[in-house]
């Protein structure tokens, strides 16, 4: 069941009615939340339910073992076991093929013949996201930030809560579990903001991301050799827009849908392409994941507490993990490491910035740095989008192929690219305009405004909408 479909919203209106009707009976309400989340997941593949059930069960008890152990050493052992098991489950489903191939290549180079077992493994959609939730829960219990959840029902809901199940935001147990207590929130805060998020998400996904994917990005990235330099250049920038619009759309709809059910979710995107350097970018892009990396990888590695060189090393390792989490491929790891170097430059920039004396020079530097950061981020996406390193270099090579053909370019792709930049700059203003308008209108007119906007989105969207990009991670 996909978010931008009639089926989802038909399901969701049914969920909303029961969600608000059952809140008076907290136990029934929570049972209902779990059943609806499992039903949502089962619509993808019933077999995935066994995976999420086992992971939930394992982590529910592992946190208890961590908490109940009196000796620090035992706590550490249980924590290590729980992390290793979670990572192994993720590794088995997501990276088995990659590690098998890599190991075979390595062994062959060393003169050994190897034939590891071939397995055709289906990655359960959303696994990478709920495994991160499970790991953060165990670590937070170990750090005594939270107590282990006593109710298995609440914990199972935390792992499987359907609006955020497939692609985040990655909520912490400490943020989510209290919202399940005593029947949860009895009112919707900022109803119009939630509708604005859902409508904005639909527009970004159905109109912008789908149009650019179908009409430019997919074709150019599949066979760059057969495209003009201009098409390749536009496809690189278009992909930067596609991935933002696609992923932030999912987050916005997830946050909006959860909001209408009375749940508060953390912000996941904050105009990332307006970042002034890479550090700023990661404070604005996939924020819940960046914070997860900071709290559970970067800081445990020592963060910035062990000297300059160690800080840079920690940054690189963290971004290596980020790359690997996104996909089983050298291109993802390379993308992560490139961002790691970008973050190191961001650290150095901060020191340089302190030396600038006037406000004017600081402003000028920020504009320049923002411009460079944006273009580098777009360029780095090439490695993220390409099927492998060779394809990524094909794209870059084609950018400089002065022999390339000239080909027709749809003018709308140019409009969409320009229009998308306006959204980066004025997205929040457009959102608050909608919120202000809706809050002044009577209910019948609010319905008409929302309907009108949905119809515009449907009219502008292509006949066939590609799936969300982040589902494959």
């Amino acid at each position: 069941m996909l978010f931008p479909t009639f089926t989802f919203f038909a399901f969701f209106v049914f969920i909303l009615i029961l969600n608000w009707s059952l809140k008076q009976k907290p136990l029934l309400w929570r049972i209902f939340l779990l059943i609806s989340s499992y039903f949502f997941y089962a619509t993808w593949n019933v077999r995935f339910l066994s995976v999420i059930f086992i992971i939930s069960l394992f982590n529910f008890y592992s946190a208890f073992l961590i908490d109940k152990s009196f000796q620090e050493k035992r706590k550490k052992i249980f924590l290590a076991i729980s992390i290793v098991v979670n990572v192994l489950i993720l590794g088995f489903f997501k990276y088995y093929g990659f590690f098998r191939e890599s190991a075979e290549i390595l062994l062959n180079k060393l003169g050994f013949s190897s034939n590891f077992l071939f397995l055709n493994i289906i990655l359960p959609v959303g696994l990478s996201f709920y495994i991160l939730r499970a790991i953060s829960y165990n670590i937070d219990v170990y750090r005594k930030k939270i107590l282990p959840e006593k109710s298995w029902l609440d914990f199972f809901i935390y792992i499987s809560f359907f609006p955020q199940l497939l692609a985040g935001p990655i909520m912490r147990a400490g943020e989510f579990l209290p919202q399940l207590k005593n029947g949860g929130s009895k009112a919707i805060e900022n109803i119009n903001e939630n509708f604005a998020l859902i409508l904005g998400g639909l527009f970004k996904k159905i109109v912008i991301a789908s149009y650019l994917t179908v009409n430019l990005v997919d074709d150019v990235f599949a066979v760059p050799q057969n495209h003009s330099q201009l098409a390749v250049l536009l496809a690189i920038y278009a992909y930067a827009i596609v991935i933002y619009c696609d992923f932030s759309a999912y987050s916005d709809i997830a946050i909006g849908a959860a909001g209408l059910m009375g749940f508060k979710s953390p912000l996941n995107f904050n105009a990332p392409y307006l970042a002034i350097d890479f550090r700023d970018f990661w404070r604005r892009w996939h924020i819940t994941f960046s914070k997860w990396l900071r709290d559970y990888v970067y800081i445990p590695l020592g963060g910035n507490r062990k000297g300059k060189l160690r800080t840079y090393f920690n940054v690189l390792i963290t971004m290596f993990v980020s790359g690997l989490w996104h996909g089983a491929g050298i291109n993802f790891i390379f993308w992560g490491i490139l961002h790691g170097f970008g973050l190191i430059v961001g650290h150095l920039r901060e020191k340089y910035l302190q030396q600038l004396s006037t406000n004017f020079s600081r402003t000028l530097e920020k504009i320049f740095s923002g411009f460079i950061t944006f273009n580098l981020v777009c360029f780095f996406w090439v490695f993220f989008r390409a099927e492998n390193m060779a394809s990524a270099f094909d794209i870059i090579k084609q950018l400089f192929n002065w022999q390339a053909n000239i080909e027709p370019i749809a003018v709308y792709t140019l409009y969409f690219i320009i229009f998308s930049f306006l959204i980066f700059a004025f997205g929040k203003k457009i959102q608050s305009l909608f919120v202000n308008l809706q809050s002044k209108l009577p209910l019948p007119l609010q319905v008409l405004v929302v309907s009108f906007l949905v119809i515009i989105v449907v009219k502008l969207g292509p006949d066939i909408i590609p799936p969300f990009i982040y589902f494959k991670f």
Partner: protein
Amino acid sequence: MEKISNPLKSVIIIFLVLLIVPFYESKRMEVLSVGMENPVLRNLALSFTSASEKIKLTLGLAGFFQQDDNFWQAFKESPQIFEYSVKTKQLSSLPPSNNSLSQPSLPTSTLPQISKIEPPYNFLLAGDSFILEGFGPALEKELILYKDTMVHRKGLYSTGLSRPDYFNWNEEIKKLVDLYNPNVAVVVFGLNDAQDQRTLDKKIIHYGTEEWNIEYGKRVDEILDILTENKISVYWIGLPNARSQSFSDKMAKLDLIFKAECQKYSDCVYFSTWELLLDSNGKYSDFLPDETGKMQPVRRTDGIHPKAYGTEILVRALINKMKEKIELQPIETE
């Protein structure tokens, strides 16, 4: 009046939007409803869209909605900047412009028969997900390595010939022929077609019936007519077997139709992929040995689409087949 609570308000808004939008977009909604897996939801949605159409007719609004659809369709047709300018090293001249669609169609038997295709070769690759990813891009990458070739590719997820109400490939092929002026076409359809057909006049033809086979054959025929009347040599790619036996059986039946229809045309070559991805026992396999004997994955996890080595096998075999009619010469590097 008591103020409505926000939860109730949110339910009312979504519920009414769910009525208004499908009412306004009833035609599109009808097309989407047919594809819904849940029979209860599908029947509900179909009844709703049918009622919407009737209401529009009764209120005399059908014309307005038709105009509105036409406006948006026209609006979405993007103008283009630049025209094709092809490097001389690859393509010395554009193909002769003799493929106007307005030409009267000739009976198949009187069509000029092209045994050998003359360069330059302007390829059109069209079809479903097979063309969109994996096989299509791999073939495109391979073809552009030869002299005097130009390749255009159009692949779309979840499309086929069974549901022209959802996506009309016959119309799309006409557009593509007009736009690109190809002289060789490689087409793949069928992966999404083992379902009830729905004609443009909304007639439903149930899958598995003889009527279904006849109607499907007609659609294949129409595409072949469009292509061959425009002097385009066609390579019709058959479907491979699949991990699921029932799906394999369905694909085998479609292959029979493709082969039978293709054989009616002298300019159509049916290219079977079935046996190319079988193991030495003639069975489906996720893995096949490469030249060195090392096992390589050939299928994706869906057990249908080919993986990198699988596409390599298919493309290599197809290029060899093409060489019988097309003089594919590698581009000499300077």
